[in-house]
Structure formats: C-alpha cells, structure tokens
C-alpha cells in the first residue's frame, strides 16, 4: 500500500518544480525601485517623450475606424506594473521589422523598448530582446537621424504601435507615482 502511495505522488514533485518558474517574473529589478526611479527620471523619460512626439506626428485618422478599433490593449495591472511594462516593451519590439511603419518611428519605439527592458532588467520570450536591442542600441540614433523620414500611410500596424506607446507611457507614469513616496 505504501509503495502505491509513493509511486503516485512522487512524479508530482518534479512537475511542481518545472511549472513554478513559469509564473514568476523574468525581471531582476523587482525590489530596486530607487535605481529604477533614477534611471527613469534621468534617461528614459526623455526618450519616451520624444517617442510620444513622433507618434503624435504620424497619421492616425484611420485608427478611429471600426476596422482598426479592435486593437489589443495592454493594461497596467495593479501591483504588477513591472510585469505590465515588460509585456508592453516586448510587444513593441514586434514592430521593429514592420515596413509599413516609418523607419524613424519604429527605430525610436525599439530604442525605448530596449531602454525599458534594460532599466527593469527584463527578458522577452523567443529571445526577441537579444535579436533587436544590440542592433538598436549601437545604431539607434544614427539611423533615426540619417534614415528616411517619409510619412507612411495610416494602417493597422501604426494604430497598434501608437496604442502600445500610449499604454507604455501611462504605465511608467503609474509606476513612478507608486515608487515616489
């Protein structure tokens, strides 16, 4: 009888050990809010403001159409601001290769995403950060300044990116408000 008990319960323990890390955050700056605060205020906020200005210059009239309104919205969940920022930053890296978005816009968006992930010391699934950020961090400013500045037509990807940027900025505001006590 005891043999049957141990045989049935023994495999459960390794299963718990494998499953538990899935729900934990892959960011290493969870309790270092002061350091995050300093880096955000001194460095990241300026890049975010520049990105918001670039986003405002891009045409968004089509985003008010019903076809473009079904865009995935990221929420900055209470007590999970860092995870929310990680999710938004990783998602924003998707737009780096979208040719229907102007080069300056998607490069700046990638630059801010990489900056967010760097400040929070987070990783993304599928090694997206390792694929994009080294390239952006080295050539980021040069490419955005010398690259073509053509204004692309409004499209679904532009709408999604603008929504993503708005959510990221709001979530940073919320996080800053919480840690500035």
């Amino acid at each position, binding site marked *: 009888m005891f043999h049957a008990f141990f045989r049935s319960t023994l495999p459960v323990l390794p299963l718990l050990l494998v499953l538990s890390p899935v729900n934990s955050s892959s960011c290493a700056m969870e309790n270092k809010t002061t350091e995050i605060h300093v880096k955000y*205020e001194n460095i990241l*906020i300026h890049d975010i*403001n520049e990105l918001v200005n670039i986003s405002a210059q891009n045409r968004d009239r089509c985003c008010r159409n019903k076809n473009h309104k079904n865009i995935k*919205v990221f*929420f900055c969940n209470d007590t999970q601001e860092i995870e929310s920022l990680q999710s938004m930053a990783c998602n924003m890296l998707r737009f780096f290769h979208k040719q229907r978005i102007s080069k300056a816009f998607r490069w700046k968006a990638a630059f801010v995403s990489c900056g967010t992930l760097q400040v929070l010391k987070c990783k993304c699934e599928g090694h997206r950060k390792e694929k994009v950020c080294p390239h952006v961090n080295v050539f980021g400013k040069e490419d955005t300044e010398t690259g073509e500045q053509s204004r692309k037509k409004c499209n679904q990807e532009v709408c999604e990116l603008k929504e993503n940027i*708005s959510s990221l900025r*709001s979530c940073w*505001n919320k996080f800053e*408000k919480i840690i500035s006590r």
Partner: protein
Amino acid sequence: MAALATFLVPVLLLCGPDPCPAAAHSQPEVKCVLFNEEYMNCTWGSRETLKANYSLYYWYRNTSNKVECKHYWQDQDIRVGCYFNQNEIIQFQPFHVLLKASMGGSTLEISKRMELQDLVKPDAPVNLTIHNMSNNQLQLTWATTYPKAKCLEHAVKYKSNKDTDWMEISVNGDVFSLPSVDYKKFYTFYVRSKVNKYCGRTQLWSEWSVPVVWGSNSTSKGTVHWLWIHTVLIPIASCLILLVLVILLVRMERVWVILMPRIPNPSKNFDELFITHNGNFQEWAGVPKDVVESFKPNYSENICYVSELPPKDSYEPLWESSNPPPSVMPSASPAPGEHSPYKNSYGRV
C-alpha cells in the same frame, strides 16, 4: 421656379419649425478635470450652446460595461455635466465616454477617449511659511493636500512693493530660497502646483495659493503712524491753512489789493476834458495860449487866378461860341480857422 419650390417644400417639411439638427447643432465636446484626485467633473456645454439633452455613459475596459452617469449637473433641466466621485475614477486606464441624445428622430452620439492621469488639477498649496535665514536669505516652504507630493512640481511668484512685474520661478521640491532680500521692502509670495512629467502629462496648474508677505508690512506701529499722518493729518492741516489764508485775504484789504491789484479805469481821468473843457484838448492839457496861437496861421494868401491867354493871330478859340471857357483856377483860399497843413506848407515855401 416651380421645380425649385417642389424641391424646397419637402425639405422644409422635414426640418419642421425647428432648424435642422444636422445643420444648426454644433457638436459639443466633453472636457473632464480631476480635482486633486478626489472628484471629477465632465462638462459638455451650457444651456445656451446645447440643442439636445445628452446622457453620458462611461467605461474603462470592455464596451459591454457601459455605465451611465449617476450625478448629472443640470442647467434648467438641460444636462450640462457629470460628477464622478472618487470610487468611480480609475487612472492609468483608458477612460471612454459616450454622449448620447435623441433629437428629431435621429440619435446623436459623441465619443471620446481620455487618460485621467493627464487631467489632474491639484489643489493650491497651503501653509505657506517664510523663514529668515542667515546672509539676508529667505526660505519659503509650503504643504499640499495632493496625495502624492513627490509627483508635483511648483511655481513661485513674488515681487516687492518697489517692483512693477512679478517674478515666476519653477521649483521641483517644496522649498524656495530667495538669496538676498532688502529689509526695507515689502515682499508678497504666491505658490501653485502641477503634476510633473514623470507622473502624468497634465497641463493644468492649480490655482494660486493664499499669499504670504514679508518685510515692513502694514501691521507695524511705525507704518500705521506714518500712514495716519499721510492720509489724515496732512490733508486736514492743509485745508485749515488754506481756510485761514482765505479769511485773511477777504478781511485785510491791503493784502487783497497787493495780491489782486485793481484794474485801472482810465475813463475818470478824462471826465474833466469832456465835461469841464468841452473837449478842448489844448485847454485841458494846459497848453499855453501863445503856443496855441502860434499854430494859427497869421497870414493869408491871395487867390491867384490862373488862366490861359488866347493866342494873338490864330483861330478864335472854340469856346467863344457857346461853351464857357474852361478855367484853370486855383481853389479858393481856405476860410480862417481851417487848418490845412499841406496848404500852409506850400504858402510858406
């Protein structure tokens, strides 16, 4: 003309006595302000600008969770705004509002999306306090009722009683230092606040605080005394002195005459000329009689008749027949007593 009339009549009938809603109604715009994160007011117009009675619906995430406003602001039975209490406010999530009204059989809808953390207006700072520091330095501190003081930036406005314009300085903390002050001047300070760029993107400043003053102010005894002298004593004394002077002037004619000499009236000086001497100027002037006589002429000139003698052996003068001969004759001698200075001068020459 008939075709135009047949086209216009149905249009007018459809519009009815009231103007067409699509043509005359200007779309209202919802404006929301979150006051100190305690309550929020959203307004969309006034009784004069609104043509329909709107209802407001709001939601944060799913469109299926639309909630109608529970506390409307009304202006004579027209809804002009909505009040949200603190429990109904969620920041850092997209806030959607929908204004809906039915008018003339059609439904009017206006939607808007907002971020409430960008619409925060903090309350004005309170408890402004001035501290005297060393080296003629002043330090101004204040407090705020906003829940997140670290999320605020401030602006200080000040001037002295000798300045014409206000100085406005941006301050990040809750302390402002004025390096050097003049103890003879009177300073006034105001402070206001705004959510900083790290916690939001609002452009709404709070109202200016209640002012605080420093320096030689009006509550000190010396200033009150000086003010009383300036505003009461000096004007009264001036009036009294003026009154005394006026009385003196009226009563003392000597002084009056010196200050206000009479305008000379020469008419009385000539009364004697016209009344006593009958206009005889020389007599009135006292010219001696021999001088008067000397002006009278003591000679007489005979009239010298001049005429043209006719020629001896020539024609008879024409004038012998009928016309009397023209004669060139000097004028008659002036009657005695008539004075003719020109003729007298000729006579003398």
